[in-house]
């Protein structure tokens, strides 16, 4: 049966057009009109898409492509390490590499556990795909910079799966003024403090230290699940949501919820292109394998801004209070300059970004800077001391052990 045009994907159209042009030697429609990988698309275009990581948030993340992001999507592949029993390498896959090799896929939605996020995102962009990747964007700091570089190199659209900043961009009142002041570049020193308390599921996503080894389920490709992380004996809580409690795959409730909570705060305070210069935490000595309890983290930026994160689940609170930046912190001349500055425009969503090839609101650099808040907090908790961080070189200063957690080796054959 002949396919209708609406069932064909952009790449299919491109391929067909190129073949027809080659055979008929007639003048072809320019690619910027027809669309094509990395080129602006018509609103009616259908995009071939794949979901990698089909448990948990996977279904929702994929549905968002056609729902929230308003794209015409044709689902072409589903990949999960638990598909050993139904893998046909046509629609169902266990190995994401086979998916990325396909030339009819334009967009990849990634909802695997976090230790796979960076590697699959980078490989997808190298394969010419646009990417929407679930949070947290990465497992350690070095991965984030590699994702940013890949997005730049390949000119692909990358959007992390959190959208709180989109609402923040259109909010009015104090938030709008805070955003304007903090992102203006006029404020050299501030006393502003943002205190975030609770909602981080710290106890819920703490890992287990007493799990017996078990037989690997028949449908699970355990080696592929572990991927760049150490290949360890199978324990059931290492998969299926409770993976969040293990440093090998995630970083507890902070990893699970942090990108949602801190991404709007980072945006609000104009920190999309920088990071803190110091991080101090209050927590018990950490376990080697699993995430556990912690009390608070205090991150200080070069301009004096402080982000305080309180779990509300362990120890004494930080005692810090929220303090908004005010226009009075600027000189009279700078206050006038600020007033003349335009208000924040709404951010571009993933769907529009894919069609117009513009940077989306939750782009790789911004997402990386947010996830670094979580990584630095977790590293400080894991080493039990205050860290000094250089947000330009992205190195922890004067603490080699802490840096080893910021830049972790990967299990071959996986590498950045």
């Amino acid at each position, binding site marked *: 049966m002949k396919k209708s045009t609406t069932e064909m994907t952009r*790449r299919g159209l*491109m*391929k067909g057009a*190129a073949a027809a042009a080659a055979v008929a030697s007639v003048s072809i429609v320019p690619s910027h009109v027809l669309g*094509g*990988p*990395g080129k602006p698309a018509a609103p009616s275009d259908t995009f071939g898409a794949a979901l990698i990581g089909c448990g948990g948030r996977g279904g929702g993340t994929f549905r968002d492509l056609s729902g929230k992001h308003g794209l015409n999507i044709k689902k072409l592949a589903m990949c999960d390490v638990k598909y050993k029993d139904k893998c046909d390498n046509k629609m169902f896959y266990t190995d994401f*590499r086979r998916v*990325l*090799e396909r*030339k009819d896929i334009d967009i990849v939605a990634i909802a695997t556990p976090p230790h796979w996020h960076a590697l699959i995102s980078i*490989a997808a962009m*190298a*394969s*010419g795909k646009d990417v929407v990747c679930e949070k947290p964007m990465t497992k350690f700091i070095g991965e984030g910079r590699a994702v940013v570089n890949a997005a730049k*190199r*390949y*000119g692909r659209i990358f959007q992390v799966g959190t959208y709180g900043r989109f609402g923040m961009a259109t909010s009015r009142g104090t938030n709008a003024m805070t955003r304007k002041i903090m992102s203006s570049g006029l404020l050299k020193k501030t006393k502003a403090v943002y205190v975030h308390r609770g909602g981080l599921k710290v*106890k819920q996503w*703490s*890992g*287990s*230290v*007493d*799990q*017996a*080894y078990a037989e690997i389920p028949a449908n699970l490709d355990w080696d592929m699940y572990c991927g760049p992380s*150490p*290949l*360890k*004996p199978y*324990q059931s*809580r290492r998969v299926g949501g409770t993976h969040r*409690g293990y440093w090998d795959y995630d970083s507890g409730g902070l990893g699970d919820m942090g990108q949602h909570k801190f991404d709007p705060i980072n945006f609000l305070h104009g920190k999309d292109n920088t990071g803190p210069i110091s991080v101090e935490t209050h927590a*018990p*000595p*950490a*376990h*080697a*394998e*699993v995430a*556990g*309890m912690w009390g608070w983290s205090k991150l200080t930026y070069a301009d004096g801004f402080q982000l305080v994160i309180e779990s509300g689940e*362990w*120890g004494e609170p930080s005692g810090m209070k929220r303090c908004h930046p005010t226009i009075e912190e600027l000189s009279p001349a700078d206050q006038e300059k600020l007033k003349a500055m335009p208000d924040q425009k709404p951010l571009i969503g993933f769907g529009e970004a894919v069609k117009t090839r513009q940077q989306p609101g939750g782009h790789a650099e911004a997402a990386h800077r947010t996830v670094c808040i979580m990584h630095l907090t977790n590293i400080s908790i*894991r*080493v*039990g*001391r205050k860290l000094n961080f250089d947000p330009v070189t992205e190195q922890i200063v*004067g*603490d*080699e*052990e802490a840096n*080893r957690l910021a830049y972790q*080796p990967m*299990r*071959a*054959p996986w*590498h*950045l």
Partner: protein
Amino acid sequence: MAASDKLKKLVDKMPDADGANDKGKKRRRSKGTLTGPSWAEAAPVFDEILKGGSDSIVGLVSMLAPTDEGKDIKARYTLHAVLTYACTPGKDKQRACVAGAIASQLAGQSKDNQAFLMRELQLCADAKTATELGKFLCTKDLSTAAAYALTAIGKDALPQLRAALPKAKGSCRLDVVQALSVMSDAQSVEGLKKAAGDPDREVRLAAICGLANIADAGAVDVMIKASDAKDAWERIQAGDACLELAEKLTAAGKKTEANKIYTHLKQTRNTVGESHVGDIAAKALAAK
């Protein structure tokens, strides 16, 4: 060496799994999480353990059960926490003592514990422990953990990795090639060029990644050859490594070599699914 009674008492001050003493449904609900003491409570215990020097660390290692299934929660937790504490900047002697003691215990442990201890060394090891770790680079199932730790040590561990390159086989060879590649070891260029023609695809890919990282202009022909791979995944990865190398050569002012790569990619990446690479190469050439 068995743990002394004093050490056992210190370890016993550390927590068990949350709810370990609960019974029935309450116990099952506790999920086996672990909540440590505050640092104010823990630090004096760790100081006392560290005062015992390497004997204490060896004693802690002896308290590990052969597998990590919750039979040694306090000892495993204490060993890691003491190690972390000893890595505090300024505690160089303690750090070296802990690393040396752990490295001395690698032989004769269960495979699980060997891997666990090497991962601990990944955090605290230094040049002195690299030799011990290097002994495992040709041991199947342990070469990965050894390579992790040696990679973390950095350039001081390169002699061990270089020495293992001609000897390592199978997955061990992949671990060694990857470690040298990730560490951008310029002295291994010839070895990596050879590995770029290895029968194993993953070894080839690790090697060309290393050649790109090192940014050796003499590797251009090897990289171009690699980029012509038939295997689709290898082709994607090799194309990426070529772009990386070309970018680095351009930045180093080696435009002729960079242009050679860009020209090849422009000519060979022009069909659907690959044209984005060809476009990047074309743009780079146009910018020169």
